[in-house]
């Protein structure tokens, strides 16, 4: 019968020849193999000193973007929370008061926005769902903590600082999103 894969192997239980029974040649062969491995170059990345280069589209810790004037993009529409398969995102919305125009881009904004990093599976669906180009995944790594509640990231950790913008241009490979 034609085999579906090329991994088919014919099993045989032929009695071993004297050469095979001596066992020494097999041992020597094995030792030669391990010796070759001894001389091989190591592929280890020594982590704290060296870090692995991430792919441009690596999905790490999220960021909530601001626009060029430093106003928060997020309007608390909740589409990211709906899209999230792990139900990691919660938010509450609030109405922009007068005098807050320099803080929030539109009339509605997220007064709190939390992502549970223990629930998050870093699928990136929130980023795809977002109509306001507010939430993006970045190549930053979520750090380890000792307590579970420290993994619930609020706006203090998620929203980028005005004077310290997070670069997400690497992710805009479609050319659809022009602004930084």
């Amino acid at each position: 019968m034609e085999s579906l894969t090329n991994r088919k192997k014919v099993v045989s239980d032929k009695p071993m020849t004297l050469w095979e029974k001596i066992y020494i040649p097999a041992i020597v062969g094995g030792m030669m193999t391990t010796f070759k491995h001894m001389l091989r170059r190591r592929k280890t990345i020594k982590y704290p000193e060296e870090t692995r280069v991430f792919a441009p589209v690596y999905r790490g810790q999220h960021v909530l973007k601001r626009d060029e004037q430093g106003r928060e993009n997020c309007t608390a529409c909740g589409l990211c929370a709906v899209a999230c398969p792990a139900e990691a995102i919660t938010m509450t919305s609030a109405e922009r008061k007068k005098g807050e125009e320099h803080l929030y881009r539109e009339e509605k904004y997220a007064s709190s926005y939390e992502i549970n990093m223990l629930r998050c599976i870093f699928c990136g669906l929130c980023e795809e769902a977002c109509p306001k180009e507010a939430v993006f995944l970045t190549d930053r790594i979520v750090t380890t903590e000792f307590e579970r509640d420290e993994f619930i990231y609020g706006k203090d950790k998620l929203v980028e600082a005005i004077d310290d913008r997070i670069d997400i241009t690497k992710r805009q490979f479609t050319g659809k999103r022009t602004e930084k």
Partner: protein
Amino acid sequence: MDTAMLIEKSALVLLLFLISLGVAAYQTYFERKLAAWIQDRVGPDRAGPFGILQPIADGTKMFLKEDFIPAKADKWLFIIGPGISMFTALITSAVVPWGTNLNLFGRDISLQVADFNIGILFVFGVVSIGVYGIMIGGWASNNKYSLYGAIRASSQMISYELAMGISAITIVMLSGSLSLNDIVKSQHGMNWNIFYQPVAFFIFFITSLAELNRAPFDLPECESELIGGYHTEYSSMKLGLYLFSEYTSMFVSSAIMAILFFGGYNFPGMDAFSGNTLAILSIAAFALKIFLFIFVIMWIRWTIPRFRFDQLMHLGWKVLIPVAIVNMLITGLVVAWNQGWM
């Protein structure tokens, strides 16, 4: 025995003790590094440059661990076990001639602690006592896995000691002496026994691996079946002593193999040197041979999987012993022929 001799021997004993322990410590480091290299890893490299301080860190860790004695264990035997292992591992080095005589302070100092005329018998005797350390430790733990490990160790020891002894007898036949010093002297220059007795060397090497409980014969302490074998219940420095004694006996039996088959401290072209230069070069040659043996033993460990117990017994009783006996008979005939007895 004069006072100077006493001082000289005591200094040598102390030096050998420290060197044995130091070598054993760095064998653990080397073993881990070699294992890493064979498995395409880096190995310990955090403690000091290239991880050179790793053995010290390991030793400190061992000392700081809780020293636990199981409630149902036989307390005194439990404590004596690792001691016997370590003692027998260390005492073998007393009869090893480490180099030609060294001339210091106008005295001709022999680099052998005790030149017994039955050196090789002494080695075999001490090695056989070594199994008592394992046996007692396994028995005193009051744990079935430990006992299994101990029983395996002793049955393995009995099976392989025969072939080992018989293969060593051929060397005694060739050199006509049981003294390790005479055996080394008879292999002057490049006149090594390996060229006359390759089969005996081969058997001796395999049986040494078995006596050392090294892979592929590490059945007494296999982790997968016996969760550590005879030292399952041991912790802290008692466990450390067991592990350490394994490495020390590896060092010493590498030395014994180098003496019996690879000319000990002899090296080709040694007649060109004399005095202290010769002594230092001979020590270096001996150390190099020991290092190569240790390297090969470790290399084998990280290449070959463990034998099954019936395979081990089969190899010992049905292969190695008959081959060793045939080899001994042929050697005996040749020696008798050369001596004109036939």
